C-alpha cells in the first residue's frame, strides 16, 4: 500500500514536471499580424488651439519628451533604481512562433520577409506623390510657412503645391561635414524603411532659392536657444551658408508625417491612453533589436525624442476611433556626425574632440568606463583611442570600420530597450540586415549624391565592412538559417544567411540535420546557402488527432559555424497533408 502511494506520488510529480516542461507549439498559423492597429477609442480631453480655444481632442494626449530629464534619468536615476530594485529582464515578448516579429503599428516585415527590388530600396518610405520636382516649380510657388522649432541644423517647413508639407533642412559646410547630413538622412531612412520601421520620406533635392516664398512673422528656434525671427534676412543667411551645387541649394526634404502628432514613444513602459499599447516598449524586439541597426549606422542619438507617434483617426484629425503609428525620426546624425563643432573654443581652450571620438563607443557619461579607467590607471587602450578621421574624408568624422565592435556599440546615453537586447534579438536584426547585398549597399551609397566619386566609394566600403562586422558577430552564435518553410509537404528548407552573405567562405559551412532523438536526416545543399532536409513521415494520415503529441516532431539543423542549432518544430499530418511548420527555436545550445 505504502509503495503504491509512493509510486503514485512519484508518477504524478513526473507528469507534472513533464507537463510543465512540455512547451509544444500549438498547431496554428504563426501570428504574422499584431492587432495593435485596430481602431480604438480614447478618452477625449480639452486641447485648446489658437483657432479653437474650446477644442476637445479624442486622440491620445501629446507627450513632450523632456530633453534634459531623459538624459539625466537614463544616465543616473533609472540605472540606479533598476540596480537597487534588482530588475531583471527576459526575452522579448512580441516574438511569434517562428522567432520573428509580427507586423504591427511599430514594424512591418519588408526586406527580411521578401525580396526587395533596387527601385523599392531607392524609393524608401516615399510615395510617388512625395517625390519633388524643383526644376518644374515656378518661382515663389513653394511657401515657407514655419521656421524650424527644434534641433540644431537650420531649416524650415515648406508647403509644396500638390505634394504637401515638407521640412527642409540645409547642409552647411561650416563643420567640415558638408553633404553628410542630407546624405545620412536619405540613406538611413531608406535603410530603416527597408528593414521594416515606419519612418519619414527623406530625399535630397537641389533647389534654386527663388522657388521659395517666405510668409511674414515666422520664428525659428534651435535647441537651447530662444526664439529668433525667421525673416528674409535670416532666410538669405541660411541659404548663403548652405552647400550648393551649380548654384542650387542642396536640401534634405523630409515629408510631413500623416496623422495627428502625439509626440514620441518612450523606450520603456506603455502609453497609458492607447488601448492598443500593452507590451512594455523595453520588451519589444523591434526596439531592442534596433540597437544592432543603430550600431551599423552609428546612430548614437537613439533617444526617445527621435521617435514620433501619430494618431490615425478613422474620420480624420484627432477624433476617435483611430490607432497610433510609431515612427522613427531624424536619422541625420548617422554615419559619423560630430555632435559638436570640431576644434577648440578659443576663449576657453576646450576641445570637443574627447566627446566626439567617444560617440558610438561610450556613453556621454559612462560610469562603467570612468570607473574602469580610474581603477586601471588608464593603462588599457580604450576603443575611442583607435578612432581616427580618414584623411580626405573628414565628412564622416570617426565613422569607419576598423576596430568597430558591434557588440560594444553604445548610444549617447543608455536606452532602456537597447540595454535589454538579448542574443536572440540581435540575431533577429542581423538576419534582416543580411538581406542587404553588396549591390544594395552600393545603391545606398549613391543615394547620398556626394560630389566626389571617391567619397561615395569610401563611404560604400565603410558601410559594407561595418555590415560584415555586424553579421560576423550576430550570425555566428545563434543559427543564421532563415526563410524556413516546408516544401512539397515533406522537405524542410531554409537559407543559411551567413553563407549567403559570405560571412565566411562557403567551404566552412557543413550542414547536418537529425530528428530530436538523434536519427540523422539527409541535407541537400544548393549554392548560396540554400538547404533542404528530407523528412520521412512518422505519422499516418488518419488515427491520432492533428495536434496529438505523437505527430509532434523536432528537426535539429547545424551549419558547423554557428554555435547553436536551429530547432524546427513540426506536426506530421501524414503523407497526404504533409508536415506543418509550427515553430522555430534558435537556442544558444541544445536543450531538449
Amino acid at each position, binding site marked *: 500500500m505504502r509503495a503504491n502511494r509512493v509510486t503514485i506520488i512519484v508518477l504524478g510529480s513526473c507528469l507534472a514536471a513533464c507537463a510543465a516542461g512540455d512547451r509544444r507549439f500549438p498547431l496554428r498559423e504563426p501570428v504574422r499580424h499584431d492587432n495593435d492597429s485596430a481602431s480604438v477609442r480614447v478618452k*477625449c480631453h480639452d486641447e485648446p488651439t489658437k483657432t479653437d480655444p474650446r477644442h476637445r481632442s479624442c486622440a491620445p494626449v501629446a507627450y513632450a519628451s523632456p530633453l534634459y530629464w531623459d538624459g*539625466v534619468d537614463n544616465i543616473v536615476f533609472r540605472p540606479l533604481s533598476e540596480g537597487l530594485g534588482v530588475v531583471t529582464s527576459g526575452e522579448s515578448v512580441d516574438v511569434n512562433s517562428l522567432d520573428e516579429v509580427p507586423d504591427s503599428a511599430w514594424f512591418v516585415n519588408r526586406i527580411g520577409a521578401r525580396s526587395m527590388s533596387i527601385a523599392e530600396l531607392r524609393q524608401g518610405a516615399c510615395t510617388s506623390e512625395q517625390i519633388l520636382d524643383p526644376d518644374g516649380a515656378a518661382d515663389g510657388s513653394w511657401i515657407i510657412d514655419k521656421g524650424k522649432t527644434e534641433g540644431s541644423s537650420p531649416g524650415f517647413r515648406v508647403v509644396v503645391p500638390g505634394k504637401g508639407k515638407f521640412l527642409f533642412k540645409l547642409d552647411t559646410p561650416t563643420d567640415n561635414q558638408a553633404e553628410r547630413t542630407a546624405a545620412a538622412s536619405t540613406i538611413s531612412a531608406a535603410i530603416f524603411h527597408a528593414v521594416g520601421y515606419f519612418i519619414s520620406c527623406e530625399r535630397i533635392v537641389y533647389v534654386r532659392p527663388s522657388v521659395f516664398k517666405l510668409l511674414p512673422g515666422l520664428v525659428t528656434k534651435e535647441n537651447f536657444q530662444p526664439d529668433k525671427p525667421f525673416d528674409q534676412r535670416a532666410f538669405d543667411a541660411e541659404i548663403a551658408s548652405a552647400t550648393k551645387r551649380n548654384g542650387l541649394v542642396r536640401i534634405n526634404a523630409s515629408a510631413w508625417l500623416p496623422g495627428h502628432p502625439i509626440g514620441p514613444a518612450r523606450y520603456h513602459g506603455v502609453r497609458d491612453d492607447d488601448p492598443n499599447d500593452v507590451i512594455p516598449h523595453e520588451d519589444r524586439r523591434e526596439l531592442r533589436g534596433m540597437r544592432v541597426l543603430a550600431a551599423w549606422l552609428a546612430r548614437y542619438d537613439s533617444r526617445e525624442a527621435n521617435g514620433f507617434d501619430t494618431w490615425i483617426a478613422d474620420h480624420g484629425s484627432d477624433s476617435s476611433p483611430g490607432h497610433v503609428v510609431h515612427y522613427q525620426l531624424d536619422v541625420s546624425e548617422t554615419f559619423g556626425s560630430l555632435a559638436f563643432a570640431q576644434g577648440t573654443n578659443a576663449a*576657453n581652450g576646450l576641445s570637443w574632440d574627447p566627446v566626439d571620438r567617444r560617440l558610438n563607443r561610450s556613453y556621454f557619461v559612462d560610469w562603467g568606463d570612468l570607473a574602469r579607467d580610474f581603477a586601471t590607471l588608464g593603462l588599457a587602450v580604450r576603443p575611442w583611442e583607435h578612432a581616427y578621421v580618414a584623411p580626405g574624408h573628414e565628412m564622416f568624422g570617426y565613422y569607419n570600420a576598423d576596430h568597430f565592435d558591434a557588440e560594444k556599440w553604445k548610444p549617447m546615453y543608455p536606452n532602456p530597450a537597447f540595454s535589454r537586447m538579448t542574443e536572440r534579438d540581435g540575431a533577429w536584426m542581423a538576419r534582416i540586415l543580411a538581406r542587404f547585398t553588396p549591390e544594395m549597399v552600393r545603391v545606398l551609397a549613391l543615394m547620398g549624391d556626394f560630389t566626389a566619386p571617391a567619397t561615395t566609394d569610401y563611404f560604400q566600403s565603410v558601410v559594407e565592412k561595418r555590415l560584415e562586422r555586424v553579421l560576423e558577430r550576430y550570425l555566428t552564435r545563434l543559427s543564421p538559417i532563415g526563410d524556413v518553410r516546408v516544401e512539397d509537404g515533406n522537405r524542410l528548407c531554409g537559407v543559411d544567411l551567413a553563407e549567403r552573405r559570405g560571412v565566411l567562405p562557403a567551404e566552412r559551412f557543413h550542414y547536418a540535420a537529425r530528428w530530436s532523438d538523434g536519427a540523422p536526416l539527409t541535407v541537400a545543399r544548393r549554392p548560396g546557402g540554400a538547404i533542404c532536409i528530407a523528412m520521412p513521415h512518422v505519422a499516418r494520415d488518419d488515427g491520432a488527432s492533428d495536434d496529438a503529441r505523437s505527430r509532434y516532431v523536432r528537426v535539429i539543423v547545424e551549419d558547423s559555424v554557428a554555435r547553436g542549432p536551429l530547432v524546427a518544430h513540426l506536426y506530421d499530418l501524414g503523407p497526404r497533408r504533409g508536415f506543418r511548420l509550427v515553430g522555430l527555436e534558435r537556442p544558444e545550445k541544445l536543450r531538449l
Partner: protein
Amino acid sequence: MRARSFVCLLIAASLWSLGANADAEEESPKRVPPDYDGRGGDPKEDGAGVWVGRVLLSPLYFTSEYIFRRPIGAMTKTVEHNDGFRKIYDFFIFGPDHKAGIVPIAFVEFGFVPSVGAYGFWNDAFFVPRNDVRVHLEMWPDDMWLAGSVRDRYRFDDHSSFEVRANGVHRPDQVFYGIGPETPQWHQSRYAINRFDARAGFESRFWRRSTVELDGGVRKVDTSSGEYGKDPSLEVEAATGAFPIPYGFARGYMGPYGRAAASIDTRRHNVNTGSGFRVESEAESGSDFQHGATTGWVRWGGAATVTIDLNDRGRNLSLSVATSFADPLGTNEVPFTELAMLGGDKWMRGYFPGRLMDRSAAVAQLRYDWPVAPWLDATIQTAVGNVYGEHLQGFDAKLLRVSAALGLSTATNVPLDFLVGIGTETFASGASVDSVRVTVGVPHSF
C-alpha cells in the same frame, strides 16, 4: 397618451445624450496581449538570490525611486516644460552672445572653513575684443571669511597678454605649526590673515608651453589671532612653548613687489599629450615700507620636470624636482607668510596649505595623470620633501617627509577638483601618517 409622451421623452433624451455627449463614448479597454508564440511566451524565472537581493535592497530602492527619482523627475520635467532651463541659462550666462555670466561655486576642504561664492566672467569686456574680465568671490558668513579677485586680461594674440589684477582675502583659519622641518602635527594652531594684492603683469608664451612673466604690484598683509573648531590660536599655542611667535605675526607689512618667472617647456600648447621636459624659475622681491624702506626679502626658486606620455594619449608620468628659497634683504627677517612653503595646491598636496615653512624647501615629486572621461583627469602623486634653513642648511634625508594624493580634476576654465591626500612625519620620526587632506570643489587657486 401617457405612454406616447414617455416614449417621446425617452427618444428625445437619447438623442440629446448622443448629440451633446458624443465624446463621452467609452474609451476602449486595453487590449489583451496576444499569445504571440502560442506557448505563453518564454517563462522568466527569477531565482531565490534575486528575491533575497530585492528584499534586502528594498529600502534603498524605495529611497532612490520615490524620494529622489520621481520627485526630481516631476520637477525637472515641469521646469523644462516651462522653458525653465533656458531661462536659468540666460539668467546666469547673459548678453547677446552669452559672453558674460555668473557661475556659482563652492569649495570644501576638511579642516578649514568651507566657502561658497560666484565666478563671474565677461569676454570681450567693455566691448573690447580680446579683453576678458574675471571676478571671483568666496565667503562663508558664519566665520566672516571672505575672498575675492578681479582680473582684467587683454590678449594681444594667442601668445601674449597683459593683465591687471586685484585680490584680497580675509580668513581666520590659516594653519601654523611652527617653522622648520620637524614641526609636529599636534602643534596645529590657527591665525587670521588679511591680505590685499594689486598688480599688473605681462605674460608671453614664446614657444610651445614656454613662457615669460613679469609683474609688479603692491601687497598688504596683516595677521592676527585665528580660530577653527577646537584648534588654539597661534599665540595661545606659542604660549605653551610649542614654538616661538613667528616674525611678522601681528606686525603686518605693506609695500611694492616685483616678480619675474620664466619656463622652457618642450610640450605642445593646448594638448595634453606628448612627452617633454620643463625647466622653470621664479623670483619675487617684496618689501615692507611700513617698517622701514630697507626692509625687504626675495623669494626665488626653480623646478625641473620630465614628463613621459606613456602611449601618446595623455597618460603622463612626470618626475619633478623643485627648490624654493626666501632670503631677507636688509636687517629684518622674512615675514613668516613669505617663507618657502610646502603643502596646498602645488607641492606636497597631501598637506594643508602652509603646513611646512622655513627659509628653504626642496621636494621631489612623481606624478601620474590620466584621462578618465572627457575633460576629466585623474591624478596620483607622491612626493618627498621638506623645509630647511637658509639655502637648505641642515638638509638631511632623514628629515624628509612623504606626501601622497589621489584625485580627479576637470580640465575646464573653472576647474572642479576632488582630492584625497595624506602626509607623514619625517623619516626620522617613523614616517607615520599624521595628516589627511580632503578637498572638493572649485579650488581657491584657480
